């Protein structure tokens, strides 16, 4: 009896947390948009459907996500071929860089690409010098093209990893047989490889589509309201136009679409797992000139796309509009004049972010830990329901979450909207799915026989946890903690709704600083971005070093 009470009592903590801070705010959004508490009814949905402006937002969201997905897959597929076929230096690091996409904050990446490809970007200046022209040859600033490039940056490594890890498990015999039958060139791709890789392509495509469908920071910073996706439009209607019924109607549309996408994705994932075949490593060192050229161009592309922008960011933070290299923008972070745009010196924002991130880490690892362990330890319908509930926040974007806080946590008994504690709570909800996706597979990988043996020898549930399970998965616990920490450090969408201007976080200060055409502010934003980048890079290295062998394809 006591065991049962403990078992369910423990579960009550995360469930209560989800009920209060996740389901209740979502309910308020539904309530608001369906007009249950006022008389408007379906009027707002009708406006979304009939007004070209809002319809345009929905269509554009789908359009840019489709384009981003096609571009990403188109680039990742040939690269995957080279990865599977050849052995070369840097392969492991490049595959690992998919993790980077989860830890790099959008504010930082958006700024880095503006510095590289913007009107006055490094590339344009180099080309203008080379071509002796006065007009910048690359016209990407404030265009859809720029947004697409950054979406490819974020998703390329993820798609590559999904395709490569699947391809490695496809038996090479089928291709060999096809070759023997005389199939070659394009027909080999169309009739053999693509059909074989279909599950991986569908899975990667859906993943990229979902990510770019809910892309927020990148679109807001690089596109502005002119290129508003659903996500940006919700934010805009809620905080700028102050049209809360319209924002909630759009949020419901967004929820429905991501919900459907997530459902489809989960199904394909299940098929992907069933489809594994005998694997054989066919990679070899490139010998022919063609092979060498292929490997070199892939490496060049990856370096240009993934590392060049970050390098340019670091370099520019030291030199932007200055004579030579100087640390003056970094020194500027310590002071705050009354004339400044910011309420506190930027360095205080770093401190704020740090505190919020620590609280987020503690909250999400303990809540996620309880949930994951419960789902792993107890089977049956209850466990499946808990798993479903816990994974649901994945289907809700950060902006919708923040908006739900704004609507739901306003009136008593939950009049918490101006409480600083909402920031780590919101961040925890964003980090929770990530934490679960690290912890749950780690727990499930544990050899069941060990646990059974321990139980047979008379060890209790807790003893097994402390002496067997925890020592075996502590690496994964740490990895999940680092993920939670970096998620909080870089969180932008939900923060815009819950962070008060008097306790700003790092990404919000960066966003404020780049919103004004002032060189001094811009330089400081670069310095802040580099600090954030360094923190995230450290996190990335920690994750890669801690990651247990054989779990590279997760996430």
């Amino acid at each position, binding site marked *: 009896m006591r065991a049962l009470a403990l078992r369910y009592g423990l579960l009550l903590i995360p469930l209560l947390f989800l009920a209060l801070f996740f389901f209740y705010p979502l309910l308020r959004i539904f309530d608001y948009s369906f007009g249950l508490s006022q008389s408007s009814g379906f009027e707002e949905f009708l406006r979304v459907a009939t007004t070209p402006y809002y319809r345009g937002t929905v269509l554009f969201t789908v359009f840019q996500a489709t384009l981003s997905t096609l571009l990403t897959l188109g680039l990742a597929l040939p690269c995957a071929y080279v990865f599977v076929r050849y052995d070369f230096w840097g392969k492991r690091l490049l595959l690992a860089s998919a993790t980077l996409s989860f830890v790099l904050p959008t504010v930082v990446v958006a700024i880095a690409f503006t510095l590289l490809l913007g009107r006055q970007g490094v590339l344009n200046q180099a080309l203008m010098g080379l071509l002796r022209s006065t007009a910048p040859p690359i016209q990407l600033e404030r265009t859809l093209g720029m947004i697409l490039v950054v979406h490819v940056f974020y998703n390329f490594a993820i798609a590559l990893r999904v395709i490569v890890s699947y391809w490695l498990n496809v038996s090479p015999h089928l291709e060999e047989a096809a070759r023997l039958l005389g199939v070659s060139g394009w027909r080999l791709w169309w009739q053999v490889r693509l059909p074989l890789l279909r599950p991986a392509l569908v899975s990667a495509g859906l993943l990229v589509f979902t990510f770019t469908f809910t892309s927020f920071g990148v679109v807001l910073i690089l596109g502005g309201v002119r290129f508003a996706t659903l996500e940006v439009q919700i934010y805009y209607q809620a905080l700028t136009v102050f049209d809360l019924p319209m924002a909630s109607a759009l949020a419901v549309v967004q929820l429905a679409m991501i919900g459907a996408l997530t459902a489809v994705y989960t199904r394909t994932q299940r098929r992907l797992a069933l489809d594994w075949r005998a694997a054989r490593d066919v990679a070899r060192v490139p010998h022919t000139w063609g092979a060498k050229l292929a490997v070199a161009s892939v490496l060049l592309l990856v370096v240009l796309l993934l590392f060049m922008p970050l390098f340019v960011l670091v370099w520019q933070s030291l030199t932007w509009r200055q004579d030579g290299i100087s640390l003056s923008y970094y020194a500027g972070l310590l002071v705050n004049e*009354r004339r400044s745009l*910011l*309420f506190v010196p930027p360095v*205080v924002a770093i401190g704020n972010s740090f505190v919020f991130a620590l609280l987020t880490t503690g909250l999400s690892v303990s809540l996620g830990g309880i949930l994951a362990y419960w789902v792993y330890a107890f089977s049956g319908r209850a466990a499946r329901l808990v798993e479903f509930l816990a994974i649901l926040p994945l289907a809700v974007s950060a902006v919708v979450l923040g908006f739900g806080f704004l609507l739901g946590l306003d009136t008593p008994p939950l009049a918490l909207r101006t409480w600083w504690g909402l920031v780590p709570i919101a961040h925890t909800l964003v980090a929770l799915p990530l934490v679960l996706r690290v912890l749950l597979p780690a727990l499930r990988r544990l050899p069941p026989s060990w646990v059974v043996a321990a139980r047979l020898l008379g060890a209790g549930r807790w003893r097994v946890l402390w002496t067997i399970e925890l020592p075996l998965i502590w690496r994964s616990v740490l990895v999940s903690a680092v993920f939670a920490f970096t998620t909080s450090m870089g969180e932008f969408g939900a923060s815009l709704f819950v962070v008060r201007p008097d306790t700003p976080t790092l990404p919000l200060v960066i966003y404020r600083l780049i919103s004004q055409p002032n060189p001094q502010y811009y330089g400081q934003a670069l310095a802040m971005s580099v600090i954030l980048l360094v923190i995230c890079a450290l996190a990335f290295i920690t994750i890669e070093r801690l990651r247990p062998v054989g779990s590279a394809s997760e996430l």
Partner: protein
Amino acid sequence: MKRIMTVLLVLLWGFAAQAQQPTTLTLVTHDSFNLSEDVLAAFEREHNVKLNILRAGDTGRMVTQAVLTKNNPLGDVLFGVDNTFLSRALDADIFLPYASPELAFVDEAFVLDKAQRVTPIDYGDVCLNYDIAYFEEAGLVLPTSLADLILPDYRGLLVAMNPATSSPGLAFMLATVGVFGTEGDYTYLDFWRDLLANDALIVDDWETAYFGNFTAVGGTYPLVVSYASSPPFTVDETTGVASTASITAPGTCFRQIEFAGILRGTAHEALAQAFIDFLLSEEVQADVPLQMYVFPVREGVTLPPLFAEFAVVAEEPAQVDYAEIEAQRDVWIRAWLEAVAR
């Protein structure tokens, strides 16, 4: 490990110390707020208080923030809400009423809220500004009405602001509402569509429009929606000539009045009242033109020579009834967004 803990403790301590300092008065305002440091310091000395300034974005964003945080306000006094966003603030009931004795020196016409929840501080006319050199070199005649802006001569020359995000942007949209109306064959929305078709650029805030796109400061658009009081700031120090001027022809401008109010929930109401009086004092009112590009509401304040020479007051600003703005602003903005954006 020990060292890490120490660093953490120091950070936490700094965080806590930030939250609890002795008597401070916090002014919530927009990004364009500025007063001379010595003027502010005088207030601090006289009342033995530390003045913090919290800039919360452009006017619209600032008012939204103030409304959203009204149960636990961001500060004690709010400055910068104008006649275009006034209703959003008054509807949410975020201000405590206060009748400043200094209002005796202010024209009645500026006092829009008869319940005195807000106090007028300054005003300015939102007008088109142009780059004088560009128009001379191109041999272009100046537009004399808003309708001129859609002529082929002015294709791709104008940068304006989104009325949903920018307060001068909203003011300019209201001028178009005043001129073209909202009903009939050719409404303000038709005008804006034609403006876009004529390659006008719309940006989110005034700073980006002026400092990011106006030819006079290095951009590519020689016409910008700005203030009639902006040209003094483009006067060349050696030649004494302004590089820009404003167009103040009848029906091309809109008058904006900026107000201050005491935020409900302040713990320092008396100090906040003193700050409102201070904003209307001669020192601040004389400081306002060169710091914030606007005219003081107080009568008899001597304008700085630069301002007196190069800044102008629009003769006949476009008229939109204040009560109508109050009732229709959100409808107009929404219609604008749906018709013009993208």
